[in-house]
């Protein structure tokens, strides 16, 4: 049985517009890192938002870790899905420092356990020395690693990453790519990663899915 199953999902932002995602299906196995490729505006971000529960599909169903998240009659709220997400420009909370950002999703743990988990995450992304810094005091690459640590900390069943490299310059990108790959492997994460750069996906992912060109044109 597949770990994640997206079946016949159709979605549109406004009633009168053509669908952004039309009858899309795919499956992921546990621990698999899958890349999603597609032109700009083809609906990659929208797909991730659907999986996360930030948008509601018009038709279709999404199943994660053997549990139905959304179908015709059912909708599990974002906060109850156990999905981790790294946003395009990271969305680190500017009023919290690195530790507080990472601990944000660990509210269900006891104090000691929370502290331990944060430490673990800091070590995983090698930011132990930056624990007390605020997001604006970090470089782009460091911010990205904090966002990753924050998303991984609550042990989500699946990690969603939207253009994780878009705000990084090219030289940084290569080193961070391999780093990210190692982190994901180490954490045995099932991951859905969006990028418009095929090289990114090739470097990190086990396989890739292309959102079809026809659909992109239909939405343009």
């Amino acid at each position, binding site marked *: 049985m597949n770990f994640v199953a997206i079946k016949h999902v159709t979605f549109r932002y406004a009633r009168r517009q053509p669908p952004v995602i039309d009858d899309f299906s795919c499956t992921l196995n546990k621990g698999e890192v899958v890349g999603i490729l597609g032109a700009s505006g083809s609906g990659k971000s929208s797909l991730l938002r659907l999986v*996360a529960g*930030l948008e509601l599909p018009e038709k279709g169903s999404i199943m994660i870790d053997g549990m139905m998240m959304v179908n015709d009659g059912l909708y599990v*709220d*974002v*906060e*109850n*899905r*156990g*999905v*981790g*997400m790294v*946003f395009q*420009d990271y*969305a680190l*909370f*500017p*009023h919290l420092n690195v530790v507080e950002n990472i601990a*944000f*999703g660990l*509210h*269900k743990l006891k104090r000691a356990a929370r502290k331990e988990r944060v430490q673990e995450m800091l070590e995983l992304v090698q930011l132990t020395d930056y624990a007390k810094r605020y997001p604006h005091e970090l470089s782009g690459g460091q911010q990205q690693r904090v966002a990753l640590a*924050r*998303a991984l900390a*609550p042990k989500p069943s699946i990690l969603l990453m939207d253009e994780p490299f878009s705000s990084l310059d090219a030289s940084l990108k290569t080193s961070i790519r391999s780093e990210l790959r190692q982190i994901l492997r180490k954490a045995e994460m099932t991951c859905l990663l969006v990028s418009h750069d095929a090289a990114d996906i090739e470097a990190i992912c086990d396989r890739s899915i292309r959102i079809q060109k026809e659909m992109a044109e239909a939405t343009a």
Partner: protein
Amino acid sequence: MLPILYVLLGLFRPTNENWQIVKQYLLTDYVLGSAKLVLFTGFFAALLGVVLAWLVVGYTFPLRRFFRWALVLPLAVPPYIAAYTYSTMTSYTGFIQSTLRNQFDIKLPPGTIEIMSSKGAIFIMTLFLFPYVFMLTRTFLERQSASYIENARLLGRSRLSLFIKVVLPLSRPAIISGVMLVVFEVFSDYGVASYFGMQTVSTAIFQTWFGMYDVDSAIRLAAWLLIVIIGLFVIERFLRRNRQFNATTSQSRPLKPQQMKGIAAWGATAFCSIIFLLAFIVPLTQIIVWTTWTYHKIWRADFIDLMVNSLSGAAIATAVIMIIALLSARTARMLSSSLAYGVSRLMTAGYAIPGAIVAIGVLAVFIALDQRLSTVYEWLGKGEGALVLSLSLSMLITGYIIRFMATGYNAIESGYEKLPRVYTEASRTLGRGNTKSFFKVELPLLKGAVITGFILTIVEIMKELPLTLLLRPFNFDTLATRTYQYAIDERIYDAALPSLLLIGISLISVLLIVRLEKEK
């Protein structure tokens, strides 16, 4: 919004006899009085505001940078305070005439300076309200006009034709918004007109209510005034419809002012100085002098009560306003854009509605509520026909909330506009629910907007006069009502201390606005 609807419904109730009298003998005077005040003040304030804004933006002259923000300061002086300050200063025993008489032996024929007239009222209102036009037009010209104006300059337009042919039409939306603010303030005014003995619709509402005890007619007057104001509101939207403020914000660069030299430059400085002196320094100095004469007498134990009253009433109302504003701005954010627009228009409509109208609506609704609840009161042993709600502070607070919701809401709304949605979304993917996300993420990030909104609103409320006069419980005095009471009792010098405090408080919010503008 309910009280406002109630006022409007007043139009459809049957008329009583008194209304016939009011209509026959008084209505024309009221309407003419209001119209005159609004038209002239609107016109002069627009003229003064635009000319000063263009001077400050378009040319360099000595002290230009100072006047750029200093000319906003007159907003800190409530017009009713300016009114009695000026009228006392220019009276026979006042500073101006006595100095002329004693130092220079010049005797002015009586009536040379007659500030207690409709001209005087227009003078005062113009001088202390023009900064609305000045501020909006200046900001607009600084941000949006560079390319057009530089082009016109290259084409060799003269200064005057540049002003008339380019600056005026270009800044029309800003001027209209500014003038509308002035007009709403004038309609709302009670202090200036009543002190100067002018007949306006606002003073008429007071007279029919307190003089004739005819609440029905007062409501009817209020309803007509409300119709006029709604009309103006619609016209404003219509006039601004074609020209969006932020048409080209993205590529706009600041306008470089042109060098002005010699007499012209000093002339500009002199002009700005005169306005600044008249509209700020002179009345402020006068009030400070008066305060030094009387503060030992006025600064007594009950003065502290007064400040506590002012502050606590305003603080409660402001707190409620901020909570409602936060809730509704947050709801609006989740709605579709046209619905959200409707919510925000509804929440901010109150600022256009004169205090007297809000007061009447609130009073009527509260009395009706008291009647509904009369059985409950009887059961509680309060006796038949007891008025509980309508004698309590809650009535005044409700009035404040309706009237000043806009100030708080605007602050929160602009805070939310700067707060990317993605923070809330991130918080939710991390397992925090909707409410938790609000408290843990949105609220801390909106802190600045909430504080700003709080200060602006509390200051507006503390300055407020007509609504407070009408809705306060028996023996409840605020700084504003006490000031006004001293003034109509001809105890002008005694009014100086509360006035000074009010100006000081208002100054906080004006300076805050100036600072916020700089940040943008």
